[in-house]
């Protein structure tokens, strides 16, 4: 019975706030066991309840734990008709149509001139949006640039600048994707290499790696190899770079 009297002493210390952590563990273990004499039974539940909480862990894995952040991060698009860009683009198209009509009526010469002017106007709207718009506005502008058949050097420069310096990783990723489409333009390959050097966001890094591989330019192997070796880069990204090197060498 020495065990029981020891427990009784520990209980007294416990209720006086004098027990050590080890002694409290002893009490928990005792009351979890089956040999609790009747006169101590009423103490059991106090230890059992807090003891049960001790071993509770959250069943949420990393994905579910951060699920609400991921939902929140998806860029919220406005309905298309509320986007000011759509209205402006529609106006520009209308002007072009009217100018076609007018051009047909009043002579062929001014037609090409007019079209060029209106396209320039559309471009400036896009640039303005990139400069002053919200993240979703900028994203929309970049996506719109992808529709262009043959963008001029100025448009490419703006896209490169967006890829390198935009605040939002989503916009930067979109710019990478847009630039791959225009990879035959001078400077795109070099710009992607520069971006690979400066970019710190893993998701964008992976987009750049995929872009460099998609362009099938063997000159990019060096840059990818360097990235794959860099310790500061996330393991997954380095794996992706390594795969990229492999794919390019296979060409």
């Amino acid at each position, binding site marked *: 019975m020495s065990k029981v009297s020891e427990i009784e002493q520990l209980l007294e210390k416990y209720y006086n706030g004098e027990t050590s952590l080890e002694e409290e563990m002893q009490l928990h273990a005792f009351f979890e066991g089956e040999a609790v004499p009747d006169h101590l039974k009423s103490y059991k539940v106090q230890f059992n309840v807090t003891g049960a909480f001790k071993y509770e862990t959250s069943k949420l894995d990393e994905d579910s734990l*951060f699920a609400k952040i991921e939902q929140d*991060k998806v860029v919220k698009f406005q309905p298309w008709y509320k986007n000011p860009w759509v209205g402006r683009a529609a106006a520009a198209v209308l002007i072009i149509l009217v100018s076609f009509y007018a051009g047909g009526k009043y002579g062929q010469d001014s037609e090409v001139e007019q079209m060029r002017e209106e396209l320039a106007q559309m471009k400036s709207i896009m640039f303005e949006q990139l400069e002053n718009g919200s993240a979703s506005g900028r994203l929309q502008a970049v996506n719109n640039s992808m529709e262009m058949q043959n963008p001029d050097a100025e448009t490419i420069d703006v896209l490169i600048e967006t890829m390198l310096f935009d605040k939002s990783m989503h916009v930067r990723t979109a710019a990478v994707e847009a630039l791959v489409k225009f990879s035959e333009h001078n400077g795109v390959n070099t710009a992607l290499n520069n971006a690979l050097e400066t970019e710190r966001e893993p998701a964008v890094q992976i987009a750049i790696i995929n872009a460099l591989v998609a362009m099938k330019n063997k000159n990019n192997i060096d840059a990818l190899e360097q990235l794959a070796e860099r310790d500061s880069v996330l393991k997954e990204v380095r794996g992706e770079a390594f795969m990229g090197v492999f794919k390019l060498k296979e060409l």
Partner: protein
Amino acid sequence: MELQEFKTKVYPLKDRLYRQALFMLKSVEEAEDTLQDVMLKLWHKREQLLGYTSVEAYAVTMTRNACLDKLKSKKHKHGFDIQEMELDSGVLTAQEKMEQMQGASVMMQAFDRLPEQQRKLILLREVEGFSYEEISERTGLEVNNIRVALSRARKAARATYLKLVNYEQSI
């Protein structure tokens, strides 16, 4: 702060915050939901987080507030929804299990009636198993005052529990 860095900072806190929420809400479902909400709120406040010396302290306060909101909301079920919890290592009959669940539920009510600071100390000491020094760091209380408050909390919880049990038995 980018998401990856944020995740590595807060992920290690998840079980502690979960136990805190569970202790307050007594429902696995609500505790998990609260945990997700807290993560989102922390993410929104990530810039401020950089200024805090202890992300943990910030997260704990946020979890507490989120739980209080939940408790106030009409959707909260004022029940005891932690059936799956292992309360006893012994083999029990269904009858004994029932009694034990009831006992645990009454004990939780007794903890709930403690003043907030005492309840917090119970959580830090009995559930998280922190030393007096660690509790002192987290609450700013002197070790001696912690001992006194814990003693009061333990005695008061027991007294309330016995009172509630006797009351139930008398009806």
